[in-house]
């Protein structure tokens, strides 16, 4: 019994160390990269202030302004967090050191959990900074007075980010350098469809069908519900989280396929030379 417990503890410790390696790597790379600092402060602030001031200029009602500010805060949070997840392989690709991670006894879970934790720290910082500024500058409280609701919404934003970041990583392994464009463009496409600045009801039918396939659609509706906006769908949390876990499962299968493919066609070595 004691022996088994010791073994489990040792396995758990090993998992923690390997995950910590990727937190360590992403954290230091982000800390020393001026561009990464811009990602957290400069760009989110620019879009937040632009949208907020535009709302003031066109005299939007406080609730409509809130609708848009929730969108911009969610967008900025996801944008930063998903980049961190994608960076875990992009940094290796840019430094041509990809093969070293793939010849070590680690699993993809270590890479993605580690990088998502850094994403949560940076994305969380964006969320709280923008929420704070929203209250100060635009007199809109972006935090619902319920820990549970805020927690579930934030968690959903981070998991959505993980889905996009992992998708970018899958593309890195399948198409190589061309995939880096996806790190910045995939997320924008998602924002266009899932109703960041507008309810999905205004979208043409075929785009709305697409929006229904994106979990973020449901979480934005869920959060806005607490500000008096009538959602288009029911069972928002259930639908959203079920989709998230379904996509994460699909991605784990796709990632295995992508690694196999990268080892078959020599992509791993190509990206390390």
């Amino acid at each position, binding site marked *: 019994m004691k022996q088994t417990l010791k073994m489990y503890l040792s396995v758990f410790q090993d998992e923690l160390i390997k995950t910590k390696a990727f937190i360590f790597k992403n954290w230091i790379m982000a800390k020393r990269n001026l561009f990464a600092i811009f990602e957290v402060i400069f760009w989110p602030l620019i879009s937040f202030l632009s949208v907020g001031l535009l709302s003031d200029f066109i005299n939007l009602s406080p609730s409509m302004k809130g609708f848009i500010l929730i969108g911009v805060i969610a967008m900025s949070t996801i944008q930063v967090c998903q980049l961190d997840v994608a960076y875990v392989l992009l940094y290796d690709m840019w430094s041509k050191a990809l093969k070293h991670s793939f*010849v070590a*006894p680690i699993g993809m879970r270590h890479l993605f959990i580690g990088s998502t934790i850094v994403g949560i720290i940076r994305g969380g910082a964006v969320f709280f900074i923008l929420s704070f500024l929203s209250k100060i500058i635009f007199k809109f409280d972006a935090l619902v007075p319920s820990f549970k609701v805020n927690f579930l919404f934030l968690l959903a934003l981070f998991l959505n980010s993980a889905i996009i970041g992992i998708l970018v990583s899958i593309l890195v392994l399948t198409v190589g350098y061309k995939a880096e464009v996806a790190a910045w463009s995939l997320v924008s496409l998602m924002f266009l469809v899932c109703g960041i600045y507008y309810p999905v009801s205004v979208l043409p039918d075929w785009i709305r069908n697409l929006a229904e396939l994106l979990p973020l659609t449901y979480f934005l509706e869920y959060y806005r519900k607490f500000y008096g906006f009538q959602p288009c769908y029911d069972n928002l949390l259930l639908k959203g989280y079920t989709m998230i876990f379904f996509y994460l499962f699909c991605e784990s299968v796709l990632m295995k396929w992508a690694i196999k493919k990268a*080892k*078959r066609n020599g992509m791993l*070595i190509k990206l*390390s030379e």
Partner: protein
Amino acid sequence: MDSAVELREIYKTYVQGIFKKKKKEALKGINLKIPSGSIWGILGPNGAGKTTLISIIAGLIYPDRGRVYVLGKELPFCLDQIYKKINISSGHANFLWSLTVKENLDFYAMLYGLSGKKREKKIDQLLDLFSLREYRDTRFEELSTGTKQRLSLAKAFINDPDLILLDEPTVGLDPDTAISIREIILWFHKKKGATVVITTHNMAEAETLCDEVSFIFEGRIKIQGRPEDLKKILRLGDVVHIRFSGEAPDLRDIEGIIEIEISDSYMRVIVDDHKLRIPELIRRFLKNGTSVERIEIDEADLEDVFISFSR
């Protein structure tokens, strides 16, 4: 003796282009057994398939056909178990540019599950062994090529591997650094008894380090064995240059003579082993009443083997 690496009928073709029409056969039926505890060289010109071969052993490339066994386990199964016991270093060292030498080692040590004092101790040892202490807090992007290369090797030793794969470990280094790196490889091999697989262009390096070598050309292993045996097999031999005065003796019946060329008072004799044959050569000259003025010896090396294949 157990095999650290065993490759059976390995084929690998790279397919390129949108319609997958461009095909490049990198390996064409490689069979190779590398005994445990040996230092094995893989030699060959650019594009011969050396890096593909070492990457297949590392599980970074899957072959199209054939079987790969590393440390007694078949790839690509049991990858996690194998990865705990192997490591790789490339001549063109690339690591995360913003991380310092210590941080890079920290990162890779964590990937192998090292933590706390154990990790610190290991990194301390490596910093000393590879003379990296003064660069401990220098970012990778600010290091010289030689220091980057030393870091790459330090990283490859971080898990005390049973099998270490070195892809052109001294390429682009100055002779002093290259020599010190070879010494470290030998020291590690002796201390740990690990199997070392090296790909190299440098024939002198292969001769200094390797117990056995495989020459790979156009995706096929053309010949393999101990460097000294290869020279014999290929009848490359040592060249003995003799300057003499008088009449040239007849040397054709001497055992181990491969080729003789005579012009005026100069004779060029190729022998299988100069240490064995020179006493008899001199005896023949003296018996013939011919005085030997000067003898020079050019020992055959792997360079000659390489050239003979390249032709």
